[in-house]
């Protein structure tokens, strides 16, 4: 198992609130291997953001780690000191955030920010600047040398996201976390960014944890997928298996609802009826039972475990246990 880079093992994270503990993540387990692209899919509020801020330990003060481990290269990040975490951030683990319009400092030039993040390098300033220009060129920004002196507001959204990718890849990280990097962009830009990301990934051989709710992008880019719902993993495994033979009703509905999947003209886009349960007051049983059209007695009473349903394929649903109930 030496090829495993990041292991999330039984991770549970709560937010302490005035209403009681909000169980944002419950018993999350999956791993990312070296040089592999893993996608995380799920609706808003399913815990994707909590997950990535937990990996980087850039968390809100009311965050509580209740159980589990996040092992990166074998060592548990939840036990690391703040100093050790800071040494990892932007070096071995980098991140591209969701909203390119707000991700850069508005009063410092792009060049200044790109030089600043090379704070670990002892190279002279001129060399750092040159490296920044090279990275901008690598993500396809024309005339990079001159653009280093410009400020973020002088770039378009697509360009800013490319700058963010350039910054994240500058240290040649082992793991790149991409938090919905294309959600704020239009479709043509999305394709460009994804292709660029793919190229750079092959070049640098880094692993990517790609968070998105765009199934098409996930199918295109990722080797494996983790499907999350309301703070839990409901299904995970090889991308083809998940898309062709989903083993969890939520995954199935999610694929049905994807506009790219709809072949016939429909007046109303399909949705999954119902709402995500209140995470401060989690009901018994399967977390998806209220919105599931195949829910049974058993789903009401017991939480289905995440179990293997085939090679490279796990799901958490009692429907896969029919032989037992029957």
């Amino acid at each position, binding site marked *: 198992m030496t090829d495993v880079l990041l292991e999330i093992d039984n991770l549970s994270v709560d937010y302490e609130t005035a209403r009681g503990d909000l169980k944002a993540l419950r018993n999350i387990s999956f791993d990312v291997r070296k040089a592999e692209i893993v996608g995380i899919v799920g609706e808003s509020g399913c815990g994707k953001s909590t997950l990535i801020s937990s990996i*980087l330990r*850039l968390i809100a003060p009311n965050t509580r780690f209740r159980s589990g481990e996040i092992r990166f290269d074998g060592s548990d990040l939840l036990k690391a000191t703040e100093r050790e975490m*800071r*040494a*990892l*951030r*932007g*070096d071995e683990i*980098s*991140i591209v*955030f969701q*909203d390119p319009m*707000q*991700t*850069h*400092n*508005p*009063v*410092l*030039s792009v060049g200044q920010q790109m030089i*600043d*993040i090379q*704070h*670990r390098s002892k190279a002279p300033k001129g060399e750092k600047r040159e490296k920044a220009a090279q990275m901008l060129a690598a993500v396809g920004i024309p005339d990079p040398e001159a653009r280093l002196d410009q*400020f973020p*507001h*002088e770039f378009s959204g697509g360009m800013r996201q490319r700058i*963010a990718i350039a*910054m994240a890849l500058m240290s040649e990280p082992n793991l790149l976390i991409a938090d919905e990097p294309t959600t704020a962009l239009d479709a043509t830009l999305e394709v460009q960014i994804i292709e660029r990301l793919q190229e750079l990934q092959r070049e640098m051989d880094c692993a990517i944890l790609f968070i998105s709710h765009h199934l098409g992008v996930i199918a295109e880019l990722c080797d494996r997928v983790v499907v999350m719902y309301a703070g839990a993993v409901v299904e995970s495994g090889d991308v083809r298996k998940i898309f062709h033979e989903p083993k969890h009703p939520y995954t199935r509905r999610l694929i049905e609802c994807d506009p790219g999947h709809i072949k016939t003209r429909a007046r109303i886009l399909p949705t999954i009826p119902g709402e995500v349960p209140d995470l401060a007051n989690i009901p018994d049983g399967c977390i998806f039972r209220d919105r599931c059209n195949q829910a049974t007695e058993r789903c009401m009473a017991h939480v289905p475990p995440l179990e293997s349903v085939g090679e490279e394929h796990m799901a958490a649903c009692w429907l896969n246990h029919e032989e037992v109930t029957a």
Partner: protein
Amino acid sequence: MLIFTLKRFALAALILFVAVTLMFLMIRAVPGDPVQIMLGPRATPELQARLTAELALDQPIFRQLIIFYGNMLQGDLGTDVFSGRAVTQIVFQQLPFTLELIFGSIIWSAGLGIFLGAYAASYPNTLIDRMVAIASVSFVAAPAFVVALLSLLLFAVHLRWFPAIGAGNGFWDRMEHLVLPSFAIGLSWVGYIARLVRASMLEVLGEHHIRTARAFGLAERRVVLVYALRIAILPVVTVIGVGMGFLLSSAVFAEIVFARPGLGKLVIDSITTRNYPIFMGSVLVSTGLFVVSTALADLINAWLDPRARSAK
């Protein structure tokens, strides 16, 4: 940036014109015959007539205004009714004392206020933060003239640490004379600026780009002092620019309490004696000071904030 600067100073000139015209009309609305007050009850009618003609008080008010601006554009603000010296000379003689006082107050209060505010914002809702909050609000609540009187009694009369009155001679003596007055009028600004910086800092620290800076492992000190403070400071610069006006009015108290020469004292004296030329001269200069400082604040802001620079 050049066009922005020119536009800003054109606006400044317009503000100055409106404010000075207003003051010109207001002093003339004060009841009582100015010539009689200036010359006293025993002046001869000939003397009174001469002064009236000299000050153009026999002309319609609109004409008086034109004469005033006409002379002003030639650098002539008239002569002092009593001493016969040029108003420009008198005003510019007093100006350095007031400038010294105002800049002294701004520098120490903004410095301390920004430090306290940034410090409190870095440790929100801790004991330190609460203590800074209590201190700031108490500072804001203390009126400048009360602080002036109390500090005079305590530090100058009782403890004898600092001189009580005057402005002093020579650099160190002047600095020593500056301590108590600038303490008195700057104190409430410490509190005000500390609260402002804290609020603005907390807002900036919650922005996404700060998370980005941290995600790249930048040292916390650099994140707070460069990435956040550069932005959090912007509203403070504007407030300090406007604050110059308020400091000018608190300077009046300080100058009276500490018997310091300065513009404030000059204005007060000229109003009670209806010394129109001196009044208009000092009002013009202090309004000019205010207008220039707000314009400077905007320019500093534009220099600090590239977004403002290209927006205009």
